[in-house]
């Protein structure tokens, strides 16, 4: 067993937790402001594709990273306008964004790189395997600070809990929500960039493979709070790392099924949602479009 649980495993857990954390912190901003963001998956894909393509073209991962941030924010803006301006169902809009982003990168890579859904390899020297980990690590205290110590954070939380009260106090509910959703796109974009130019060296079709949803689960498991969400991401990253390590490992002559390790995050999230261990209370106005004079 000891050759499974070693420093390598912890490092791998950290690497696997990073994109989850970036997306989950993005989701945190959006959801604390009252806008459900199940589009994290799509936003990550937008970031991943943009980062790989732009880095390949421009030859600089930094340009690629910034483009990924912008792409994430741009796609998030679509979600924001649909949900805030046109009061679309936030879950439905998020689902549409997810479907859109399985199609768009594939369509573009087919057109520009004549491939079926992937970008060309980015050269080794243009990869950023560590920077996003550092960014994610720094973002946790920063998010905590912004949320609890700045006017922006106070207003953000108020808008997600009781938009009417925020409005009555002179805070523009819609403005705060737009800002929050755009931030969520930017952060998920970084998470996506890490997938394509950090962990690997190219974009492949649907490379986020459900990480946006796990990030969402981590956010719920972490009760919509920055530090707890980080711990949840680390836990989920760790289970994934273990699942990878266990692949093909025999224990007492029997192959250990990794599937049971893989489902841990999902089962835990359901258990938390049902209130079996502690309660995870969502921001009260989550999912409800704000409308004056109703």
């Amino acid at each position: 067993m000891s050759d499974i649980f070693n420093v390598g495993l912890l490092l791998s857990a950290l690497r696997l937790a990073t994109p989850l954390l970036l997306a989950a912190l993005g989701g945190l901003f959006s959801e604390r402001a009252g806008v459900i963001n199940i589009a994290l998956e799509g936003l990550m894909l937008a970031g991943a594709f943009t980062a790989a393509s732009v880095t390949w073209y421009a030859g600089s991962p930094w340009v690629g990273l910034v483009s990924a941030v912008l792409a994430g924010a741009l796609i998030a803006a679509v979600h924001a306008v649909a949900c805030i301006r046109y009061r679309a169902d936030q879950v439905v809009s998020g689902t549409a964004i997810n479907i859109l982003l399985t199609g768009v990168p594939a369509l573009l890579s087919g057109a520009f790189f004549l491939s079926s859904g992937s970008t060309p390899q980015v050269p080794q020297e243009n990869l950023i395997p560590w920077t996003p980990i550092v960014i994610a690590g720094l973002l946790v205290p920063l998010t905590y600070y912004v949320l609890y110590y700045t006017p922006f954070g106070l207003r953000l939380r108020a808008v997600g809990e009781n938009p009417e009260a925020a409005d009555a106090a002179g805070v523009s509910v819609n403005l705060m929500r737009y800002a929050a959703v755009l931030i969520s796109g930017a952060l998920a974009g970084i998470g996506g960039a890490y997938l394509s130019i950090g962990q690997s060296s190219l974009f492949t079709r649907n490379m986020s493979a459900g990480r946006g949803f796990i990030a969402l689960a981590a956010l719920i498991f972490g009760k919509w709070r920055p530090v707890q969400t980080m711990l949840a991401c680390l836990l989920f990253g760790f289970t994934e790392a273990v699942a990878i390590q266990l692949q093909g490992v025999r224990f007492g002559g029997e192959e250990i099924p990794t599937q049971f390790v893989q489902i841990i995050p999902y089962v835990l999230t359901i258990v938390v949602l049902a209130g079996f261990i502690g309660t995870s209370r969502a921001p009260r106005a989550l999912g409800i479009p704000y409308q004056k004079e109703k």
Partner: protein
Amino acid sequence: MLELRAITKRFGEVLANDHIDIRVEPGTIHAIVGENGAGKSTAMRIAYGFYTADSGEIVVDGEPRQIQTPHDAIRLGIGMVHQHFMLVDTMTVAENIVLGAEPGSAAAIDLTKALGEIRALSNEFRLSVDPNAVIHDLSVGQQQRVELLKALYRRARLLILDEPTAVLTPQEVEEFFAILRRMREQGKTVIIITHKLSEVLAISDDVTVMRDGRVVGRVKTKETNAAELARMMVGRDVLLRVEKPDARPGETVLSVQRLSVTAGGGERGLRDVSFQVRAGEIVGVAGVEGNGQTELIEALAGLVPAARVSGEIRFRERDVTRTSARERYELGIAHVPEDRHRRGLLLDFDLSENSILGLHYRRPAVSAGPLLDLSGIRARALEMIQDFDVRPANPDLPARALSGGNQQKLIIGREFGLGPKLLLISQPTRGVDIGAIEFIHRKLVELRDEGCAILLVSAELEEVTSLADRLLVIYHGRLVGEVDPRQATQEEIGLLMTGGGKANAE
């Protein structure tokens, strides 16, 4: 200080404010009184930028102003304490107070400065509250102080208070009035929305009386009295007296013993209520809305979770306290709910489908197995629509397309069609046009004369006094008196309703 000129506001069909003129002098306490739905809150929400008026003008300190959002109002020195507090439950007192007007820079809220200012304000107006407490741990009285501090922190010179005493105990009301007087001494202007006349007389300098979306009176408090205000408040342009023979009550149908309902979210609850309703009589319940009427009717209809109900409800000698809504319906208890949009109708369903709600699971709505007899349902719906004069008489229209009066007639038709032994009916004519009111009243008397026991709740004093054979008055979740509606005057009942009678049990 503040002047509303010809403010008009429409919500769909309803004219909530019809050319309202209100003038508030600086340094005074100005009361705006009126029944529920008179348009008081709407007018003040317009002044605070929560709603935008369709037409009219707002003048602040002699200058016409555009107030589009609360932010605009705050900048002009207007603050408002809403009836339902606008506080974020999960945040602290200090956070709520500074929200939207945070001291310090964009990078950091200066908490020390905030706490200092809050302490200073608390001392100045004697509004003691712990700034670090979380809102949901506070009593409503304390929460109200937070709301006041919120407005004062924003340097409000004019405070609009919407039904501020509704949530307070009599002792708290005294304290609260002391605070208001202190504010007036400091040069603040206060507008207080209320329907409690005793309070108006105790605290205000001027009174504006509103009824049916219009201003019907402006008086100096010193020059008026409760009787005059009550008359202005409840008086009707058209007197709707119901011609009805004397009741001939039969056996007791409903017997309620020490019924209590613990308060749910934001409700007051019901305390130790006992009374009887006999066959062939209409028992009215008068009271200002929100004094436990909703809980009473819903508990009798079986719509309150059993865990919140104590006491005993007997229907024709049978204990029904723990039975489900459907069982009570089966036994012959019909219910016309107070809010037809929330409870009584499926607005997107057509009239046929609405005509079977509650009866949809059995004959004649169901023909074979689980199958609904659609043509039969439609035929019976059409018959009912004609009997109860629902217009337009088209069973295929969605309920949403009907006016309030016709929606109400549909519900009444459905519930009367049950052949009930007991009818629970709440606010039967709210938002209903004059013609439909008369029709509904006539139908109620007819049903009574057929031997049905009727429990009628209405916020319209006129309505309960003219329909009821016996009248109970409810205040703060208790029955505070029974009067003979033919003998008692509106002023007497009004005083009981507003907690001014000797029967006040508080």
